[in-house]
C-alpha cells in the first residue's frame, strides 16, 4: 500500500516567499523603466498608470515562482510510504498513551507525533469494512471512538488528538482494549506509549497479547516537582513562604531561572544551577500580596508542561473567638496570643455563664474541658480535652507522651502548617470515634494510636475535637506546634466556605459546597470536569480555573507534580509484536522522501532562469 505525508508540515510557512516574490514584482513594475529612442510616437498614446494594470507574469517570473514552490515543497519534506502490513480482514484496537510525558519534544517531533504516524498508518492499512477502535490512556482509560468502519473519521480523530497533562495509567486502557478485542476473532491490539514494557504496569499475559510500540529517547527535563506554601494561621500574606522543589531529570547539569508572580505582580526570580538528577528546594519569602501564585521555570527543556505550577497565598483572616473556660491561666495566655494577632478579638466566658445564656449569632467558640449540653446552631465549636462521657466527643482513656504519626495534609484545617511530626503531646485523652467527623491528626503512644484531632460537620455547624490539653504557656517553643494546630483549626472553623481548591491533574477530588458553570481556564475551561453532588473535580489540563458566575467564582488551581511523567528519559524505544499474529510484525513501512526531487527540479529551474535571463540581457 502507498501513503503520502509531510515530514515537516511547519515548512508550509516557506510558501510565504511566493507572496514576497509577487510583492517584489509589483514594486519593480512601478519603478522599472524601458529606454526608447524617442517618445515622439508613444506620447500620442494615452498613458496607463501601472497601479491600475493587472499583474502580467513574464517567463522569468513564472520560472522564479516555480523555483520557490519547488524549494518550499522540498522543505516540507514530502514522503511516500510503501509496503507495510496488508489488510488481514481483522479488527484493530489502538491504545494511545495521552499522558503528559507524550508532550516531550524529540528531534523528529513530539512523542505523540511519533506514535500518531504509525497509528495512522495502521488505520490506513485496514481493509474496507474492517473495524477499529481508539482508546486513550491517560490517568484514566477512555474510549474515544468505539468500533467503527469509518476509517476517515478515525484518521481525523487521530490527527486532532493531543496528549493531556495527566499521569499515565496504561494498564486499565490495555485491559479495556483486550476485553473489546476478545469479542472479535482475529482482532489485534496495538499500544503506543513512551513507557517501556517493563514499566507499563501490564501483566506479562497482557503484554504478550498486544503489539507494543514504545518511543522516546531524551531525558532533557527540569521540572517543578512540588510547591508548599506555609502560612501560619491568622498571619499576614507577607509572612507566608513558598518552598518550590525543582528537580533535574537530565543526566547533564542544567541552568534554569525560576520566576514567581502573584496575580499580575512580579514576586521574585532565582537563577538555579542543578547537577544531574539533583533536586533543589527554593524558598521564596515576602510575597508582595495575597492571591494566586504562578511559578515558571525557564529552561527550554524537552517537556514544558512541568515547568509551570500554581499555588495560592490566602489573605489575612480575622480571629473572633469566644473562649469558654474555667482556667484563668488559659484565658490570660490566649489573651496574650490574640493580642499578638492583628485585628483579633477574644471574649472569655466561664462555662456556667455560657450554659446559662449561650450567646447567639455566628461565632467561633473554644470549649476548654467542657462540652455544653446546648450550643447555638450558628456556633462553630472546638472542644479541647473534652471530658469523658460527652455525647459530642469524649475521651475513652488517658494517654501520656504521645506523638503525631499521621495527618490529613490536604484538610483545610491543616493548610499552611508545616509537618506535624514535631508535635508532642504530654497528656491527652484518646478520642472515641464519632459519626460526624473524621480524624485529621492521629497520634500514637507506646501502646495505642488514637485520633488527636477530629473535624467534621454536625447539625449544620463545623465541629472539631482536640484530644490534647492546652496548658500554658502556649507561646513557649514546646507548645508552639500545638498552638499552631489549635489556631489552624480555629481558622477552619471561622471560614464560611472554601473558595480555593488545589488539586492535581488526573485525580478526582470531592469538594464541599456547590460548584456550577461556567468554567473559565485552560482549553476554554474544558480541561476541568465537574460532576456529582457534592461535586467532584477532575482536571486534565493544569492551570488556574475560575468556576461559577463572576463575583461568586471559586478558584481551582491544578498542578502536575508527577515524578513518573517528568522523568522522561527512555532508552530509545522499540517494538514488541504480539505473540500469535503479525499485524505489526509484518514488513516495515518503507518511507521514501521525495523532497530531493523537488530540490533537483529547483536546480533545473534555476538553470532555466539563468538562460532566460541571459537571453533577456542579449536583447
Amino acid at each position, binding site marked *: 500500500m502507498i501513503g503520502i505525508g509531510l515530514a515537516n508540515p511547519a515548512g508550509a510557512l516557506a510558501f510565504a516567499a511566493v507572496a514576497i516574490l509577487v510583492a517584489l514584482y509589483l514594486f519593480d*513594475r512601478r*519603478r*522599472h*523603466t*524601458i*529606454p*526608447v*529612442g*524617442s*517618445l*515622439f*510616437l*508613444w*506620447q*500620442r*498614446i*494615452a*498613458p*496607463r*498608470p*501601472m497601479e491600475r*494594470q493587472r499583474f*502580467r507574469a*513574464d517567463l522569468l517570473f513564472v520560472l522564479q515562482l516555480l523555483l520557490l514552490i519547488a524549494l518550499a515543497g522540498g522543505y516540507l519534506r514530502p514522503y511516500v510510504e510503501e509496503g507495510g502490513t496488508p489488510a488481514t480482514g481483522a479488527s484493530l484496537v489502538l491504545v494511545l498513551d495521552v499522558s503528559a510525558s507524550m508532550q516531550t519534544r524529540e528531534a523528529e517531533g513530539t512523542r505523540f507525533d511519533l506514535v500518531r504516524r504509525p497509528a495512522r498508518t495502521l488505520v490506513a492499512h485496514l481493509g474496507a469494512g474492517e473495524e477499529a477502535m481508539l482508546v486513550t490512556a491517560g490517568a484514566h482509560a477512555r474510549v474515544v471512538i468505539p468500533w467503527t468502519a469509518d476509517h476517515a473519521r478515525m484518521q481525523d480523530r487521530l490527527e486532532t488528538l493531543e496528549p493531556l497533562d495527566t499521569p499515565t495509567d496504561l494498564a486499565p486502557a490495555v485491559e479495556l482494549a483486550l476485553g473489546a478485542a476478545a469479542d472479535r476473532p482475529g482482532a489485534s491490539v496495538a499500544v503506543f506509549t513512551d513507557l517501556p514494557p517493563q514499566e507499563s504496569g501490564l501483566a506479562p499475559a497482557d503484554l504478550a497479547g498486544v503489539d507494543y510500540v514504545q518511543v522516546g529517547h531524551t531525558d532533557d527535563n527540569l521540572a517543578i516537582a512540588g510547591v508548599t506554601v506555609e502560612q501560619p494561621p491568622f498571619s499576614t500574606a507577607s509572612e507566608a513562604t513558598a518552598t518550590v522543589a525543582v528537580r533535574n531529570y537530565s543526566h547533564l547539569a542544567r541552568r534554569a531561572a525560576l520566576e514567581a508572580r502573584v496575580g499580575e505582580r512580579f514576586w521574585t526570580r532565582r537563577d538555579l544551577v542543578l547537577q544531574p538528577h539533583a533536586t533543589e528546594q527554593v524558598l521564596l519569602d515576602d510575597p508582595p500580596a495575597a492571591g494566586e501564585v504562578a511559578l515558571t521555570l525557564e529552561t527550554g527543556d524537552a517537556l514544558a508542561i512541568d515547568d509551570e505550577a500554581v499555588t495560592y497565598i490566602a489573605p489575612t483572616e480575622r480571629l473572633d473567638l469566644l473562649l469558654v473556660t474555667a482556667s484563668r491561666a488559659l484565658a490570660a495566655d490566649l489573651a496574650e496570643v490574640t493580642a499578638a494577632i492583628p485585628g483579633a478579638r477574644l471574649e472569655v466566658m466561664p462555662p456556667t455563664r455560657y450554659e446559662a445564656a449561650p450567646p447567639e449569632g455566628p461565632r467561633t467558640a473554644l470549649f476548654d474541658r467542657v462540652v455544653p449540653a446546648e450550643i447555638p446552631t450558628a456556633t462553630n465549636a472546638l472542644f479541647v480535652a473534652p471530658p469523658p462521657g460527652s455525647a459530642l466527643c469524649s475521651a475513652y482513656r488517658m494517654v501520656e507522651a504521645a506523638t503525631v504519626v499521621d495527618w490529613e495534609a490536604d484538610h483545610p484545617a491543616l493548610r499552611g502548617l508545616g509537618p506535624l511530626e514535631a508535635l508532642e503531646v504530654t497528656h491527652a485523652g484518646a478520642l472515641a470515634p464519632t459519626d460526624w467527623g473524621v480524624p485529621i491528626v492521629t497520634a500514637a503512644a507506646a501502646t495505642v494510636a488514637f485520633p488527636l484531632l477530629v473535624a467534621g460537620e454536625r447539625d449544620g455547624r463545623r465541629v472539631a475535637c482536640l484530644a490534647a490539653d492546652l496548658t500554658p504557656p502556649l507561646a513557649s517553643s514546646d507548645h508552639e506546634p500545638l498552638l499552631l494546630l489549635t489556631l489552624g483549626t480555629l481558622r477552619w472553623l471561622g471560614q464560611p466556605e472554601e473558595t480555593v481548591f488545589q488539586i492535581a491533574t488526573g485525580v478526582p477530588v470531592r469538594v464541599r459546597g456547590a460548584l456550577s458553570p461556567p468554567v473559565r481556564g485552560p482549553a476554554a475551561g474544558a480541561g476541568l470536569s465537574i460532576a456529582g453532588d457534592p461535586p467532584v473535580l477532575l482536571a486534565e489540563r493544569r492551570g488556574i480555573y475560575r468556576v461559577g458566575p463572576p463575583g461568586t467564582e471559586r478558584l481551582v488551581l491544578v498542578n502536575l507534580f508527577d515524578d513518573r511523567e517528568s522523568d522522561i528519559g527512555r532508552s530509545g524505544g522499540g517494538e514488541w509484536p504480539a505473540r500469535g499474529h503479525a499485524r505489526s510484525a509484518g514488513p516495515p513501512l518503507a518511507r521514501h522522501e521525495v523532497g530531493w526531487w523537488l530540490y533537483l527540479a529547483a536546480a533545473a529551474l534555476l538553470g532555466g532562469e539563468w538562460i532566460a535571463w541571459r537571453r533577456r540581457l*542579449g*536583447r
Partner: protein
Amino acid sequence: MLRALRHRRKRAATTGAPGIDLTPYDGLALHVRRGMGERTGDRRFPGHPQPSGIELEGYTAYAPGDDLRHLDWNVYGRLDALLVRRFTAEREVLFHLLVDGSASMGVPARDRKFAVASELARALAYLALSANDAVRLAVLPGAASRVYRQRASTLRIVDELAAATPGGSLALDRALEAYALRHPQPGATIVISDLMMDPLEVERGVRALRARRYEVVLLHVVGAGELDPLREFSHGMLQDVESSATHPVVLTRTALARYHTLLRDHMTALAALAARSEATYAHLTTGRSVAEFVTTDLARLGLVRRR
C-alpha cells in the same frame, strides 16, 4: 581560376578592411542628378557645357579669348560663322555621409541600429570612392571628417565609424542647417538616421541642404523592436534616452494597433516630405541585410547603378 583568386586577393588588399566583405558592391556606383562638384572628375553633368572635355554637348558663338583650338572650322566654312565647341562637364561628386550618432541609435540595444547605420555608411563610402568620387563623413552631432578621395581611404572611414558610439542628443534640423552653412560647396548629402522625430523637423533640415543645392538622400534605419514593440516589453515606464522624459504605457491590443498606425503614418509623412523636397527616401529594417538593401532597394530608386 588562379587568376580569379589573385584578383580577389588584390581587391581585398585595396579595400583594406579586415573582416568586412565589400565584394557585393564591386562594379556599382552612386548616382545622383545634382551635387556637381568643382573638381574635375569622371562624372558627366549634362546641361553644364564647358570649353574642354570629351563629349561634345553643343556650340556657342566665338568670343575673344576663347581657345582657338575649339573653333569648328567646318561650320565656319559652311555657315561663315565662328562657333566654338562646348563639352559636357565632367566633375567629381562630393558625398557627405551624415550618420546619426545620437543616443536614440543605441536603443533597443538588440536592434544595433547604429551598427547597421555604420555598415550602410561604409558601403556607400566604398561605392563613392570606387567611382572616384569624394566622401566626407560626419557622425552627428560630431564634426565632419576631411574629404577622402582614395578607395583605400575606406579603411579610414571604417575606423572612424568603429570609433564612434551612439550618445547624447541630436536636433537633426539644427544639425543639418549648421552643416549646410559650414560646407557651402555643393554635393550629395546622405543622411542615415532613425528619424524618430517630427517630420517637420526633418523637413527643415532637408530644406536647408536643398537651399545649398545639395542632392539629399534620407535613409531611415528602423529597428525591428520599433516595428514590433511587443518584442521588447508589454508594459512599463518608457524613458526617452535623449531627453529622459517618461511615459507610462501598457501595450494592450488597442494601444499596439494605435502605435502601428502612428508608425505607418510617420513613415508615409517622411516619404511625402522627401517628395516635396526633391529628396530621396528609403528605409532599412535592422533585420535585413545591408548589402541586399543597397543592391536592391537603392538600385530600384536609381541611387545605385552599375558603373
